[in-house]
């Protein structure tokens, strides 16, 4: 299935900003994160089609997944 993956902030460094990527059916958000080797240290949250989602959520073909670093302080 095709998932539009968007990375935010430091996750873009040496990776990409937005990319349509191919995954097997039943892939979870967590598996995408692990596959991209995103740092747990700064892992914040994920949006599926703009809505906050659990890392265990299963993606559907055509979903847009945004992965963001944590938001902390100012």
């Amino acid at each position, binding site marked *: 299935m095709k998932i539009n993956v968007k990375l*935010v*902030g*430091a996750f*873009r*460094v040496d990776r990409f900003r937005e990319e349509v990527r191919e995954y097997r059916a039943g892939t979870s958000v967590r598996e995408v994160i692990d596959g991209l080797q995103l*740092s747990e*240290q*700064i892992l*914040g*949250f994920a*949006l599926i089609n*703009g*809505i*906050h989602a659990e890392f265990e959520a299963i993606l559907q073909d055509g979903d847009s997944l*945004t992965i*963001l*670093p*944590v*938001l*902390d*302080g*100012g």
Partner: protein
Amino acid sequence: MKFATTDPATNPSAVFYKQCTIDLQTGEMSFSDVPCRNLEDVLGGFGRSFQDLAQRQIDSAYCDENPLIVNTGLLTGSTAMTGMRTYFSGYSPIKGSKVGLPAAMWSTGSGKFGAKFKWTGLDELIFENRSAQPVYVVIKESAVGPQVQLKSADHLLGLSTHDKIMSLQKDYPDAHFAAIGPAGENWQNNYMGAVALSTENQLKSKEDKCRFAGRGGMGSLMGYKNILALVAQSSDKQAKPSELVKAANRNVIEGGGSARIQPISRGGGGGTWAAYDVLQEFHAVPVNNFRPQGNAIPEKLFRENVEKEYDIKSEACYRCGITCHNNVSEKNADGSKGEFLAKFDYEPLNLLGTNVGIHDAGQAARLIQLGDNYGMDAISLGVTISYALAYNERHPEKPILNGAFFGDFEKICELIVQAGKGELPEIGKGSMRLSEKLGETSYAYHVKGLEIAAYQPESNPGYAWAIAGGHMSMGTYGLLTREGKSDLDSWVQGITEDKLHIVGFDMIGLCKFFDIAKGIGTQMVVDCLKSEFDFDVSTDDLRAAVRRAFLRGLALELRQGYSKEEFRVPAEVYEDPNPNIKLPNITSPEFLEQLEKRVWGIFEPELEGLLD
């Protein structure tokens, strides 16, 4: 401090703090070892100072009865990482209720002044009345205990925060400093004066890399008292950390709340600046006085775009491994580092950048630097200016002040300089007073008279219950954006329980980045207290003390005349909702009404007797 107990929660009076009270009018001073009233006193910071402020009925910030209390926290100067904080407390010139009474306030910053102050042997300094002449105050250690001297400060008058510190360093090369700028000196027309705190980096590099206790105009109160600077002169006394503290410090770096704001090169997010990227995903980066436009304009100040043209160096406070500073300098033609410009933290960068229509990093840096040099709170300054620019945008035929509009760098510079010199009270006295004078209050982005931080109020109705400004005394700023919570139950729980604990750091002497999400009621802090003082304190003891201190702040606000209607985000947010913000609406009048009812229903019964 002196400790005659290992159980300060049940036996606080066996803990004594060294206090010096100075009558600035007469020069008389007295020292005493004061027994603590409760665990809040033991922890220090605002937990102690607010109890003292509660004992005074103050009707005007600029009166002799309003003290300036300078103190530290229990872990300031300890081996616990980030233990650098100094606290300045008093009734605020800028934050006040609609009936005209000033609110109690504290402000805090890092730098090395706090540790040096603590190492003189003094825990708290209370300034009474005001000096007839400008003075600076030297606090130094001696064989017979801490000593305090008042000295003429005529030679410091008119100097910037940085230049005052540089001047004093020549006379006190082994000391650290707290100084106001011209804004604080011109306290009559500037209520947002900050206190600059010197850093090791600043004293070595001679670059203006101060830290600031900015919020609430404590620098203006200091200016009113005619104190231009404080000098803390002591030998360094930081011991080698114990295994317990080493483990806690390691956890701060590797597993605690700070890991995410470390430099990108270490796998972190790159300091608080990283908030830009996250908030932009929701079109929730403040633009042109908190009205995001649903476009990509904030991206111009994304780190990835700024670093193409400027040199960005990750640096840290003294012996802090978090390294959250992003110091921005010009980049020379050969790619080497040029002149230092400013430190890019999320708040100043946004509020003196994108939110005033400035999208050029060099210009934003200059505005931040100007505000810092004149010694003003970047949040209050930026938000008051953005209000004035918004007014001019709405009234192009009859603009106020110098007629500045969003993005007009030169004219915004003028506003900052004039405000810093005390020549522009319209800006210097903050957005509440300016908006009331102009009769257009709905888009003045303050709550309870104190300008809000750079998180859209649409994402944070918790601002209303923050007791010392915006996000740093109520940690709900990420509850919707980060955690996705848009239901009433989560917000009631966040405001009345989980997120108020952020203020614990403003008692104990640690920076919030020690563990921003969890507060001080953690095993890490318990271990540090055991190791440093042989204290047996539980996480429950700490949480209870923090809650009491927070509620005392809320009770003090009500005593100073705030009506419940003042505990609300700016009216524009719910009267004219911004359709560009891509977040669930949690600031409708209905939601706010329910939230207020339930939050007060929990808080109010607990407020009784807290100020007795």
